[in-house]
């Protein structure tokens, strides 16, 4: 019992520290209005015991959302905003999870959006958050809701000046690593990009 109390006393300041660090990390991420760069995705499929690699670009506008465009080997795009997820596949097949259509979609979109945006409150509501300092900050997000755990077990962000990589551990032993490289920080989005995020 004493050990438990001692560990609780020791951990309490740490949790406060993580809280402050989380805000610092996301303040850094959102300090630049737009981040663009190349995306390298490595997806491990346990059942095939191999990784699938794809490449593309990303555009991150902290307050508006994120656009992922995969160009190789099979083109597709994913637009994440606060209230919807829009996936575009070949042949202009568009799959929309629109929050206006269903509150469940809105909730999922809001949570995914919060991972890239400065929405610390939503993160805290939905994840057990830990932040580890070092050369780069590492933010670990473990879903609180069992339903969310069915989509992913853990999201880890490595953050320097901006997000450098994101890794997602999924159920069934699968995982995905997203490396965000060759980043640039334009002042604003182009009209086309604005339109894609507003659609």
């Amino acid at each position, binding site marked *: 019992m004493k050990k438990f109390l001692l560990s609780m006393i020791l951990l309490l300041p740490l949790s406060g520290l993580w809280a402050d660090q989380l805000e610092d990390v996301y303040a850094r991420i959102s300090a630049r209005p737009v981040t663009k760069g190349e*995306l390298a*995705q490595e*997806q491990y*499929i346990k*059942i*095939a015991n*191999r990784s*699938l690699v*794809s490449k*593309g670009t990303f555009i991150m506008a902290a307050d508006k959302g994120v656009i*992922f465009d*995969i160009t190789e*080997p*099979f*083109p*597709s*795009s*994913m637009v*994440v905003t606060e209230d919807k*997820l829009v*996936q575009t*596949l*070949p*042949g202009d*097949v568009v799959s929309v*999870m629109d929050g206006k259509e*269903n*509150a*469940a*979609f*809105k*909730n999922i979109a809001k949570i*995914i959006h919060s991972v890239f945006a400065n929405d610390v409150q939503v993160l805290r*509501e939905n994840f057990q958050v830990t932040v580890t300092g070092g050369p780069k900050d590492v933010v670990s997000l473990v879903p*609180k*809701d*069992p*339903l969310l755990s*069915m*989509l*992913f077990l853990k999201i880890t962000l490595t953050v320097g000046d901006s997000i450098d990589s994101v890794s*997602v551990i*999924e*159920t*069934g032993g*699968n995982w*995905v690593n*997203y490396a965000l490289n060759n980043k640039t920080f334009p002042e604003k989005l182009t009209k086309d990009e604005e339109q894609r995020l507003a659609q």
Partner: protein
Amino acid sequence: MKSRGWLSNRFLFLLLLVAVFVGALLRGVQIDTSFFSLFPEYSKLSDVENKISHSSSSAVYILTESIDFDSAKKGAEAFCNAFSGSDVFKSLTLHQDPDSIEELKTFLFEHRYQLMDEETVAELEKGNVDELSKAALSQVYSPFSFADLSHLDKDPFLLAGRSLKKYAFQGIGNMFMKDGVLTAESDGKWYVLIRGSVTDEALSFSKKNGIGRVYEKIKELEQNNRGVSYICSGVPFHSYESSSKAMKEISWITGASLALVALIIFLAFRSLFPMLISLTNIAVSLLFGLAVVLIVYGRVNALALVFGTTLIGVSIDYSIHFFVNREHIFRSLTINCISTEISWCLLMLAPFPLLRQIALFSAAGLLCSYLIVRFFYPAGGADIRQHDGKTHDGSCHPDASCHPDGGQGSGYLLRAAGIVVLVICFAAPVVSGIRIRNNIKGMYTMSGQLLEWEKKAASVLKLGSTGEYFIVSGRGQQELLAQEEQLASRLEIEKNLGNIGGYTAISTFVPSMAHQARSYKASELLLQRSRVQLKALGFGSAAAEQFALDHQSKAGMVVTLKDVPAFMNEQIDALYLGKVGDSYYSVVFPLQVHNSAALQNLADGRHIFFMSKVSDIEKELDHLTRIALIFILASYLLVFPFLCLIYGKKVLRIALVPVAVILASLAFVSASGGGVDFFACAGIVLIFGLGLDYLVYGLEKKTGKATLLSFITTEISFGALALSSFVPAHVFGLTVCAGLALAYLLSLLIGRS
């Protein structure tokens, strides 16, 4: 000899009373509070409709509201704990099984070749395998797509995932699962949903009403958990409100009517004896009416009791006439009892459960009252005479023949006045017009809080369902599903046209065997592409061979309703009605209906029926109103020859009066409200029966004091009913009140002239 006959009749009647009361007690006194009894059987599919009504009449939604999710969830848990194991709810669901999505994924994966949606099947049938293949590959490589890749070797085209969205989010409206409960966020507040089904006992007034206990507990929980409030929605809350109101009204209408009637009788006879014996007669008659209804129907509707209070004013008439006229009135009483019973019996034929109960209650009570007067009053006659202090030889009777105003000169004046009133009665419908119009929305008005709750629940849940739906039928389950699919394909067109937002149907969960076979056949086209597909995903040729074997093993597999994941059963139960008569039935609910006229055209009247509850009930009530008018004509034709036999030439004098009263009543109702509705028409049936009494008494030379007293007491009963907040009771009471006043006036003018 005659005396022994009377004794034997009395004994038999007493035996009947005892048998009926014992029979009713054995069946148990149950008061039905069902809200749906307000409505008639309004369609040919009434048995099917009853099944739908039965499930919706017990379903409740309870939302807990708070500014933060945790408090709302705790409030919901406290409510469920409070009613855990109680006899109020058959079921109470708060927590959602987090494994349900996993269960659904397994179901969709196992039956992926049979459950492909129409769009995918059609694409494959067109030979567009390439598009499907590319879409799956892109999906696998797409970031944050969260596609289920755990069976990628067996499902490289991601067929299972294509249907997941449709299955997982159907019928939950604006709610989503959070922390194991269904929740919604609206206007900065969190709501947690509890779904429940109330037991039949909890809805009944025979025990402490379950809904009353829900309200008490909610009040207590709100006091203990500041910041958490509860919102109740569902038919049981409306049933409770209307029946509670009905019970209160029964108390005051009965109390007020009895008190006034007793006072009038006391004042008229200056004696307690007639008053006490009349009140006893009323009490026995009311109990007899109630007992007969309980024996026949097993339970009595609270609203039928509200209407039944009018029995006080009607049954007292026989007592009054007896005390004024003694045995000389029995002929008139018998005629009147028969004519009034005919009116009630005709109402018993109406396809309207509530009205049938009212009619049976009144007919039985009235008959009982008549028989009490007939069999028991003469035995106590000597005593009453002493109290009364009058004779019945006609000389001092307050009847028309000896009344000072009954002279020849005033007879002409009365006749002239009668003719004028008759002309006015016949002209009234021409001036006002007669419109038949039933407005069921106006029949029931929600209390402020219930209205607020319903508005809030609708805005939070956003289930999108309206009172409009389709009933689909088939000779077997497969024909039913095939019919549903035909309807679904047309509903998809309406959805694309923007006429509806969506729909729910069981065929979207489990398609027909024909569709499943077609789906499997279309999936065979994937075999040719499977090797390339699996290679692109990193699998070897062995995986392709396994894929082909696996596909082959699924041949002939059939998905039935029993195979669906358990968490979907509740939704399927609400849609699938099962076998009713010789056919199988299901319901298809269009959601967010913007153009209901477009939906009506989708019904074929053979297998697909469009049901619009409000307009269907109103149409049926309009139809019933017309039938009721025909009933009145039928009553008239039935009673007229009967009166002809008794009164001969005099019958012509009374022939015009009922017609005049009916026409004037129809004109009055048309002019005073939105039109003649069914309850006004039911009132007119009664005016015919009761109004005729005054004329009969007139012809029998028994008008005067007795008729005036009986008129006043009847007016008191129906007048009290006219004060009811329950709109049909108000309309019924007011119509009878006005109609009887006119009938009485005409009986004075015509009968005595």
